[in-house]
């Protein structure tokens, strides 16, 4: 751009000729204040409350009451497909398009394994464990533009997304985090400041074990051989040549995987992190070691 823009613009130049801005000169933006004084303060006379009755006296019945007949929310029958809808696990979707965007902007480091912590630090996703979020799911919108070799760990992934990542020579794993571990994973620093030892990650419940034991979903509980077979099968299905990762220079990073009970890379359950003195305390008692290593 050849013309340099003055940030202040014309207003800056006009200000040079105006009186000094002091405490006496300031006034609010016209229309921002709604102050009225006197009898018109609350709308005047009946103040918008109507005439007599429950309306004016503030005694109206509860929300949903329709005067005595069966209200709408009771008249409609329940059905089993809605049962426990508010307790179902939810997964925040992450498109491959957004993932590529974050990698291109440099917010995600492809030379390190990509974890939910890294995604949250890059402000790529917002996960709310208190709203029944159990993690992040990879969605295959943008699989045609995706071109990055990464080691990514999510909680759910669609087949197309798995294919897109493996086509570019990356590694994808799906793993389970129980809500407490998820809360710790998202915000590690407030957890470390609490002064509690890192807990063990819980195993999935019986309805989720088949999902995470399946090699098709690249579950973390599945056999590594079956995962290799599933990779080959998926490459045949989607019609791309499966690149050989073992000859890659970043093979060590791509093959990094967390232990079943581990929450953070490099930190085992039972350890206590002291942020202020920058020390890690490990348990020495036999029973504790036995518990944390089981």
């Amino acid at each position, binding site marked *: *751009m050849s*013309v*340099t*823009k*003055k*940030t*202040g*613009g014309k*207003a*800056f130049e006009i*200000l*040079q*000729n*105006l*009186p*000094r*801005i*002091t*405490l*006496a*000169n*300031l*006034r*609010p*933006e016209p229309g*921002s204040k709604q102050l009225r004084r006197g009898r018109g303060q609350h709308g005047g006379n009946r103040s918008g409350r109507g005439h007599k009755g429950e309306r004016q006296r503030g005694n109206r019945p509860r929300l949903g009451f329709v005067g005595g007949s069966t209200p709408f929310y009771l008249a409609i029958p329940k059905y089993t497909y809605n049962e426990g809808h508010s307790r179902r696990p939810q997964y925040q979707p992450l498109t491959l398009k957004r993932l590529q965007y974050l990698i291109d902007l440099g917010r995600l480091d492809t030379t390190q394994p990509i974890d939910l912590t890294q995604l*949250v*630090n890059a*402000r790529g996703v917002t996960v709310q464990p208190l709203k029944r979020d159990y993690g992040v799911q990879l969605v295959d919108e943008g699989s045609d533009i995706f071109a990055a070799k990464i080691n990514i760990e999510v909680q759910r992934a669609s087949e197309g997304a798995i294919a897109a990542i493996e086509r570019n020579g990356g590694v994808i794993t799906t793993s389970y985090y129980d809500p407490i571990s998820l809360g710790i994973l*998202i*915000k590690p*620093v*407030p957890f470390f*400041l609490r002064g509690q030892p890192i807990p063990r990650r819980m195993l999935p419940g019986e309805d989720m074990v088949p999902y995470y034991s399946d090699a098709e979903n690249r579950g973390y509980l599945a056999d590594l051989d079956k995962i290799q077979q599933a990779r080959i099968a998926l490459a045949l299905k989607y019609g791309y040549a499966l690149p050989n990762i073992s000859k890659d220079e970043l093979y060590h990073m791509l093959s990094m995987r967390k232990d079943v009970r581990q929450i953070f890379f490099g930190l085992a359950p039972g350890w206590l992190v002291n*942020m202020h003195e920058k020390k890690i305390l490990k348990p020495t008692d036999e029973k504790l070691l036995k518990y944390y290593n089981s």
Partner: protein
Amino acid sequence: VFRNKIRCVSSFAGESAVPPNLLLPTNLVDPSRHRRPAPPPDTALPILRSCDTSLPAHLSPVRTWVQTLMNPSDEPLGLTELHPDVFAVPPRLDILHQVEIWQKNFKRISHAKTKVRSEVRGGGRKPWRQKGSGRARHGSIRSPLWRGGGVSHGPRGPTSYYYMLPMKVRVMGLKVALSSKLAQDYLHIVDSLDIPTPDPQYLTELIKQKHWGQSVLIVDVGEEFPENILKATEELKTVNIIPAMGLNVHSMLKHESLILTLETVRFLEEKLLWHDIRFSPLYPFKLPYSDI
């Protein structure tokens, strides 16, 4: 007789004499006010400090004179380059007003409290029987209708007027205040706060000679200030010195002139520009972050 002793000129065209009964505002623009011109692009003076961060191509830095407090002469030492996103932002007067009102009110706790009819001493017994006495019916002698009775809708207990403006609004307020000071030629940059004597008289004469105005706010970074300037400003009511962390919109508007050192300019630019590029907080910024 003018309220202030400064001669003011009316902006009406075609009238030479100001009518005697005209009440002029005290801060009317005084054209005889000594306003120094902007540094021309071909000065021989060196640029003592340029912006730390690299500016985008469409922005150019603002240049101002750098003066010294050691000798009271008017000659500047050199030039400084100031970041336009801190010292030349659009003059958002509504943000200045918001921040000023916030500063005034968020600390306020009003302790006004009146007694309600249940809190006033007495008034539990019905004063006279309901019917037959001929007087109006009453239930207690402390109802709001009675003399000495409770107040029905009075102030109740300590009320807090605490609220927080968003961080970025408060930062913008500081930027707008600095920019408007620079635009109206009330901002002066100084290389350091060394003075030859701790005499307050020296400072007042210096301010008068340099035409810095009635009140001056001096800002510096660092834990220790030179003793001379501390002693000199201690006695004076209109000349005040504050650390850079204490810079706020209210103080800037209250004092006529603002004096910053080069170190302060660097500190302010660093702190105020960070808010333009930072991520949103996952947890409060006071807790340790490894990457921000």
